[in-house]
């Protein structure tokens, strides 16, 4: 992802009076084309009852710039992205360094972790 373009868009939302309503992640399971899978990250902004979204598909190699300098409330979502999905978010204004949640399993919602659980249960996703 192009960090500069992305952060410009985020600043645009902030300038226009939108608020950050949600940062969400959905794991894309590993496939022959994407052996490590990926994570679809979306940033949702609300204004006057309307929602708009920015979306990026990121792999374990990609870095995602924190938007916490623009929307101060983003730090919780971003720490969650890191801890539960293994997304490499950089430049957080509050960094829990993996200690926000006390999950027993490391990055429990990462594509590989979900794949492993599904395989273990013999289910097809």
């Amino acid at each position, binding site marked *: 992802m192009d960090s500069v373009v992305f952060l410009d868009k985020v600043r645009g939302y902030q300038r226009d009076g939108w*608020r*950050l*309503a*949600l940062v*969400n992640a*959905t*794991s894309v399971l590993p496939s022959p084309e994407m052996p490590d899978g990926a994570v679809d990250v*979306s940033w*949702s902004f*609300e204004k*006057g*009852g309307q*929602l708009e*979204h920015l979306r990026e598909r990121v792999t374990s190699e990609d870095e995602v710039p924190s938007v916490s300098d623009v*929307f*101060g*409330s983003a*730090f*919780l979502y971003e720490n969650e992205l890191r801890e539960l999905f293994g997304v490499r978010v950089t430049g957080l204004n*509050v960094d*829990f360094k993996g*200690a*926000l*949640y*006390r*999950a027993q399993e490391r990055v*429990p*919602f990462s594509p590989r972790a*979900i794949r492993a*659980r*599904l395989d273990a*249960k013999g*289910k097809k*996703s």
Partner: protein
Amino acid sequence: MKRTIVLMGPQHPALPEPLVLDLVLEDERVVDAIPTIGYVHRGLEAMVEKVEFTEFGMVAERICGICSFMHGMGYAMAVEDLMKVEIPERARGLRLVWAELSRIHSHLLWLGLAADAFGFENLFMHCWRIREQILDIFERTTGGRIIFSVNRIGGVKRDIDDNTLAGIVAKLGEVEESFVGAARVFTEDPSIRHRLRGLGVLTREDAIAADAVGPMARASGLPIDVRASGPLYQGLEVEPVVEVEGDCLARCLVRVREIPRSIGLIRQLVARMPRGSHPVDVPVKGLPKGETFIRLEQPRGEVVYYLKANGTRLLERFRARTPTFANIPAMIKLVKGCELADVPNIILTIDPCISCTER
């Protein structure tokens, strides 16, 4: 100045649920607060991997014991949106009646806890005695007092007959009357005003910067209420309750004033409900596919549900961004600069729900 770190939680008399705040102090003044959650993280969202979408509403309801109905309703609405299901008008009305009853019971629960925290034990018991009448209505109409399991994809599982609806409206008249005395104490009592006024002030600008939601935002002058801006309450008179002081008292007063407003909404809903015997659900066939976002106004503020389905019986993703999650940055802002002794009251006034936050 030498700094001290005081750990507050995970168990604390003012916290009904586990939360840790590392409070960094200079003398008795808090200069920083670092929250740690994760003590009740149950991985409920991950259960979409093994619970079929027709059953997952049961899981969504168990995110939280106070907003249980609304979580079930939000989940059902999200699936209905994906499957293009139009639910009957009566089912929509019944859902909103139960939703507003949930708001009343949640606010009464919180007001009781708040009263107990600042030393008004009789007021605590009075609020909970009133709340009991709401729980009785739930029991009578759904069979449950906390978890109702009354939502289904396509409508609701139970109807409420017209006589019972009229009885609920009459009972709410009694609730409103008995709440007047309690409301007067919260609004006028000099000790409560002294304890809460000017404490934990979140300015309008701070509320915007922290993306605060619900009573937290409305107490700081922001008229944010999904009921007023979304389509769900269309045709009903919904006006957000707003206070401007942004302090603990304002947050308390917003909830006090929202109780009669919710009673008024239930009266409107019952008056507009189609009379007689009408279907309360529609048959739903097929499998959900696609993604959707649904927003609701829970007692604690805006909740956002995200659902992604791939045309199988197992969903790909369910996400609930709950109001407490959204209000944690504002809570941290409030705590900074206050006295250590005021921290429990300030935290309490955001009405934190850690089970909702962690899921």
